[in-house]
């Protein structure tokens, strides 16, 4: 692709993002369709606090230095939200990561949540656990299953980049009748997730979760920009299909 064309597209999308953010800050409200997975996240945290147990959250295996970094960045928003609620109530989430660069950011999220809750003394770096490297997905899945079983977690949240091996972890969680939320951008993992739980963040919904949980104007604006771009792409696909149909 021509670099100038790419740069132009970036500039246009950025301008749209800024315009919609300003409109949001001026008080223009947007209604979002309900996502059962997002509602389930809040319920899981509530159940964990009531039962005095912890929710397991995994950020997957996509490194922050790779092309799948946005997937992990979206997952970190969900960890931030769960950590904020959990640490305020003395039930920080059991956090596991499957890639080195995710560990410091997960630790930072938990430390920040403890600090915000005025419980910095209770924070320990080992609250976020590195389980396996990204080249060993089965070891990672088995490690997550062990964390869930040994710590008697109250719920299981897996958000980020996973493969079909999440079936191993999801099975371990299902055996303990846990409520599960799975959000990923990998189609094969999504197929497994659909079979395992009703609360699935399908692809783009993972990226939208932050807007549902935090509702900042710039997050809502990015959803609006996505909707506009999706409409343009859909029209372009239909127009091209019609053109090909007519011209043979």
């Amino acid at each position, binding site marked *: 692709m021509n670099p100038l064309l790419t740069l132009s597209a970036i500039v246009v999308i950025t301008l749209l*993002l800024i315009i919609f*953010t300003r409109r949001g800050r001026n008080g223009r409200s947007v209604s979002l369709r309900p996502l059962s997975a997002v509602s389930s996240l809040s319920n899981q945290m509530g159940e964990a606090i009531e039962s005095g147990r912890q929710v397991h959250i995994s950020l997957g295996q996509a490194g922050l230095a790779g092309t799948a970094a946005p997937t992990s960045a979206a997952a970190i928003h969900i960890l931030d939200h769960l950590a904020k609620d959990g640490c305020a109530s003395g039930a920080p989430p059991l956090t596991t990561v499957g890639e080195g660069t995710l560990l410091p950011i997960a630790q930072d999220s938990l430390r*920040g949540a403890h600090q915000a809750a005025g419980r910095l003394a209770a924070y320990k*770096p080992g609250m976020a656990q590195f389980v396996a490297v990204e080249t060993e997905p089965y070891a990672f899945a088995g490690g997550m299953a062990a964390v869930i079983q040994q710590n008697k977690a109250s719920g299981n949240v897996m958000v980020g980049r996973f493969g079909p091996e999440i079936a*191993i972890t*999801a099975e371990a969680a299902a055996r303990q009748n846990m409520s599960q939320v799975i959000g990923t951008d990998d189609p094969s993992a999504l197929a497994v997730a659909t079979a395992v739980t009703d609360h699935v963040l399908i692809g783009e919904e993972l990226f939208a979760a932050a807007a549902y949980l935090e509702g900042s104007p710039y997050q809502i604006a990015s959803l609006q920009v996505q909707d506009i771009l999706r409409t343009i792409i859909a029209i372009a696909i239909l127009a091209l299909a019609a053109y090909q149909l007519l011209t043979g």
Partner: protein
Amino acid sequence: MSKRKLPLAIAIAFGFLTLLGLLFMPDLSHLLLGWAGFLAAVALLLGVLNLLAVHFGRLVNGRNVYSGVLVLSMVVVFGLAITDALSITENGVTTVFNWIQVPLETALASLLAFFLLFAGFYMLKRQRSPGAILFLLTAVLLLLSQAFTATTLLPANIRDPFQQVQTIINNIIVTAGMRGLLIGIALGAITLSLRLLLGLDQPYNK
């Protein structure tokens, strides 16, 4: 500059430099991505130390046998890596990997089919919605189609309809769904990346 603004300024500056490098100056982007790769390697080392520290703590405080096995394995493999480097042993790490890690992972991978089968049954037990029934029917139909089309025992007039169904499902329904999914993911990734680039999202600044 305040404690929060410095990481933000660094992140935005390097984000834009990497973007410009990727678009116009490949050497600059290679240099920056090389630095990122080095930091990722350091992070991996920290990850391994975290794994060791967490399990050593569990072994000492909780007498956890599994953690003990993990710590012992790490120490043994580390020792083998040193003896390999000093030429006292030959391919020690590779041998351990091939004899223990590979069979264990292969066993887990082969169990995946059973986990998926159970997941399918759980789903039907959990919710008997039209979607769940369609999901299972499609899975069974595709499995049967693959089995029937792979065998030469069946006559062609029985095999061919299954082949056609399989082709229609794969080439039209699955491909269309996958493309829709990937377009949505790409759009989500683009807008999130721009938010990071503009400093609106700051996952590094807690």
